[in-house]
């Protein structure tokens, strides 16, 4: 009985732990938003320079987003691997 309670407690900890990394998605959202927003405000000031910076925009977004994906990975690891 006590063992079962301990197992359920561990299960609960696992689910809480898997849920916590979703907060990392907020950080990725802020990062991507800042990049896209700054790109847009720059592009509206100087529209002729905007097409040449599309590659930089996507690279910046990819770098910011990677960290959000890492937190998703940790959630997956806690759910299915640990």
């Amino acid at each position: 009985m006590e063992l079962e309670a301990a197992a359920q407690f561990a299960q609960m900890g696992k689910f809480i732990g898997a849920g916590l990394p979703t907060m990392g998605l907020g950080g990725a959202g802020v990062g991507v938003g800042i990049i896209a927003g700054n790109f847009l405000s720059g592009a509206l000031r100087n529209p002729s320079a905007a097409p040449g910076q599309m590659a930089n925009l996507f690279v910046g977004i990819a770098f910011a987003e990677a960290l959000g994906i890492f937190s998703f990975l940790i959630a997956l690891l806690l759910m299915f691997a640990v």
Partner: protein
Amino acid sequence: MSEEASTGFAIHPMDQFIVKPLFGGDHIAFYTVTNVTMWMAIAVVVIAVLLVLGTRRRAIVPSRSQSVAELMYGFIHNMVEEVTGHEGVKYFPYVMTLFLFILFSNLLGLLPMSFTTTSHVAVTVVLALMVFLGVTILGFVKNGIGFLGMFWVTSAPLAIRPVLALIEVISYFVRPVSHSIRLAGNLMAGHAVIKVIAGFATLVVASPVVIGAVTALYGLELLVAVVQAYVFTILTCVYLRDAVGGAHH
């Protein structure tokens, strides 16, 4: 805890990523033909057919398949030349191969009942490690030991250079990790979200909303498939620039 109780979905959203042998048995060895192998082969065949058909006639006024092939070729060629400079153009065939393989794997994965090969880290990590090892070897071949100068930021004050060097080294070795996880994570998350939303369709009241939501998400996934292929290739070009262009510039 039983499986049914833990999810509550009729179709588990992660079931679509299970690797199954095509011909009998559950045993998977390195030579087993699985659904991953099949869909990778289909992607290669589709690319070959598109490019062979597209370049067969070579008309002045291009047909539809020819203009698709030409547009992709021109797009990637421009990207390689712009990002890596003139020196990097000779690595264009490799970058083009990577782009086409990832793009078509992503797009074929969006077909209903198909399998997304690029949603598996095992697939993308091979692609990313090839780029990482290739770039590292190329950098040492081209610049000799001077390639290590990439980690020694000469534009920074001397006092903080060792700290920066440490950070640079760490970020260099994290590259293949983020390079592969980004592609696999995006694809896996997107496809799982579609399945989770589709799972709500068992509730009759919600089903019209679900159909709309799945259609919208499908459009988003189409965008993600193309953008992630683009991002993977452009990051390959960025890494390649370090190798062929030497240190920071």
